[in-house]
């Protein structure tokens, strides 16, 4: 068992490592291309994909703006259907509740569906620490659990492992026979986990959506492990972030269309479970009890911040990562925590503190592809700029570090220069002179902050005369 601590401030080191991995880079590049193509094709099939996208963004915006009222309605309806709704302020509380419930039930085996929020709170590790055997049941998550690694990619947690590596892993940890056949490996996992589905007392999942109108939670998957986790054990616990609620069932089906298309290019996933309360009287399967743990863990703080609020509109489809030029090269590991790609660049700092993830919101070109593709309408580029503003201001409420003094002096001076035409002329002329003397193009001698440019590029040729100079001359000449 490995407890995975955030490595979000190890960004530069992780980037260096990951960029050096040629095989991984090719895989990331190819996979992103495929996901993007599948997404574009599936949106192209819709009567009006663009309108559908905008419709989804509006639904999520509306939902987030009315969040507490929708949560109340959700709770009311879920409770009417027999679910027990529990509210947890943070990871510690959520884990403590779930552990004590498991102990109360005398549970010693738990099966888990893929859930980012449960990774955020380190639930699996806590359960295991408390003597409750817990298995990830999504095949990719199962593999990375056995390997003690972080998921490589949102959509494919273990796709960077070769068949041989998975085979060695299964052989080492579970005693399975080695094989070069991925079907055999999959079937071996199937048999192993089937046994766990049958024997587990508790099933734990997240939820893709919580529907206020009906009190239902909706879960999306292709493998069937979530259907098992929510049908076979006597107790089902669903951990749901406060932001997951949508108003109505028709809103939910609209978001569903965008979610599966954005995530894997599917019109719909192989299985969609709409769960409304525990099993009813006379039913022979399904959980006797359904606990829905509504989790805050820093989200209400984000909610209170107008500039950051739209981050909660995210539906966790992973498309932003597939279209992000930074993610496509550095991969998920570099983001150092549960969330990766553009939404990771936003959520990791907001949830962990700006000082703990200081590179994530700086290492972006702000190209805006993420925003253009996002079905939830998250304004990632502007949130990133806001994060930079708060970092520059040393905002303690977001746990930003105090910015180095020289940084503030630098930008203060830069502003001072730009505020006066003569100053600008003189300083820029000096700057160009220095560049010319330093040897432009082939010989990079630059102030430390800018030397990164010349690692792979020539310096631009500084103009002998600036445009302003030239224009002034011509105007003078033209006035004669």
């Amino acid at each position, binding site marked *: 068992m490995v407890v995975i601590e955030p490595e979000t401030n190890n960004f530069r080191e992780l980037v260096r490592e990951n960029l050096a991995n040629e095989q991984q880079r090719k895989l990331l590049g190819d996979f992103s291309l495929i996901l993007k193509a599948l997404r574009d094709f599936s949106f192209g099939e819709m009567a009006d994909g663009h309108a559908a996208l905008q419709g989804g963004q509006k639904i999520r915006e509306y939902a987030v703006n009315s969040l507490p009222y929708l949560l109340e309605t959700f709770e009311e309806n879920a409770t009417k259907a027999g679910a027990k709704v529990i509210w947890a302020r943070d990871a510690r509380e959520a884990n403590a509740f779930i552990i004590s419930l498991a102990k109360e039930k005398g549970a010693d085996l738990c099966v888990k569906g893929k859930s980012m929020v449960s990774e955020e709170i380190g639930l699996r590790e806590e359960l295991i620490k408390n003597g409750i055997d817990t298995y990830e049941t999504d095949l990719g998550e199962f593999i990375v659990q056995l390997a003690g690694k972080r998921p490589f990619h949102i959509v494919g947690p273990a796709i960077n492992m070769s068949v041989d590596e998975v085979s060695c892993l299964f052989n080492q940890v579970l005693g399975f026979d080695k094989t070069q056949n991925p079907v055999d490996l999959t*079937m071996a996992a199937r048999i192993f986990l089937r046994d766990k589905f049958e024997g587990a007392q508790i099933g734990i999942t997240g939820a893709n959506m919580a529907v206020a109108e009906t009190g239902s939670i909706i879960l999306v998957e292709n493998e069937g492990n979530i259907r098992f986790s929510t049908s076979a054990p006597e107790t089902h616990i669903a951990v749901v972030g406060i932001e997951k609620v949508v108003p109505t069932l028709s809103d939910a089906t609209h978001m569903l269309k965008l979610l599966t298309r954005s995530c894997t290019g599917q019109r719909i996933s*192989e299985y969609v479970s709409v769960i409304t309360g525990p099993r009813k009287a006379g039913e022979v399967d399904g959980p006797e009890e359904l606990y829905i743990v509504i989790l805050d863990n820093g989200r209400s703080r984000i909610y209170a911040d107008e500039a950051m609020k739209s981050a909660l509109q995210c539906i966790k489809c992973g498309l932003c990562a597939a279209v992000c030029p930074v993610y496509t090269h550095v991969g998920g590991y570099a983001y150092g925590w549960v969330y990766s790609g553009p939404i990771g660049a936003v959520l990791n700092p907001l949830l962990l503190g700006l000082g703990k993830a200081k590179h994530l919101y700086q290492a972006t070109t702000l190209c805006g592809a993420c925003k253009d593709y996002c079905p939830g309408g998250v304004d990632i580029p502007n949130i990133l700029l806001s994060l930079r503003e708060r970092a520059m201001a040393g905002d303690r409420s977001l746990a930003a570090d105090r910015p180095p003094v020289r940084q503030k002096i630098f930008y203060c001076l830069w502003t001072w220069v730009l505020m006066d035409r003569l100053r600008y002329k003189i300083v820029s002329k000096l700057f160009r002179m220095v560049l010319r003397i330093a040897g432009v193009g082939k010989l990079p001698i630059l102030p430390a902050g800018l030397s990164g440019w010349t690692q792979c590029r020539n310096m631009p040729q500084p103009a002998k005369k600036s445009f302003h100079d030239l224009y002034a001359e011509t105007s003078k000449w033209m006035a004669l």
Partner: protein
Amino acid sequence: MMHSATNRSIILNRLKRFAVRPDAPIESKIAKNRVHDLDALYSSFSQALTANGGTVIQVNKKDGALESLENIMKELDADTAVISEDSVLKTLGLKEHLNTRGINVLKGEKNPTAHKGTCFSADVGITGADYALADTGTIVIFHGKNNARLLSLAPPAHIAIVEKGKLLPDIDTLVAEIGPSRRDLPSAMTLITGPSLTADIALQAIYGVHGPKKLYVIFIE
């Protein structure tokens, strides 16, 4: 020790300071009911589910259904089956018919543990379906007393027998069709659009990782 009710107040009050009351009632938007061309819908359904790895058959009589079923069972080399209490299956006399063909129909268990045992050991699960959605090739099962969840999940093959009249164009019509009873949904409603699928090992598409490897949908007129 955490106190849920207190947390609830704290969280909701904090959020309400920055929230806007919903300006519309929390009611699904329902499109008008249309008349459906069942043949066209069947055609779409068949195309979509077949492309997704399922097998779709249309028969026009009880005998046709039983014959198709037999062929499938032979193809699967199946010995045991679990079946749901769906009225369509009862009308077909499914249990009796399968018994006469040498297929052991495992007894429907009332005890959850025993029920798990039979579902996990059967070769095939046979159920009905409440709706079928044409544009995605999806069958919709309202789980309840008559349609237990594990029947369509645990056995390595799942056969669904559906009345053709249950075909709807898409998921939006489903919401419209459910109508006011969406206020009283079953404990679980499952939408199934193909066999269980994964590509988690080296991006190789493999069927039947946890759920059934084979899915058959037989439409009866």
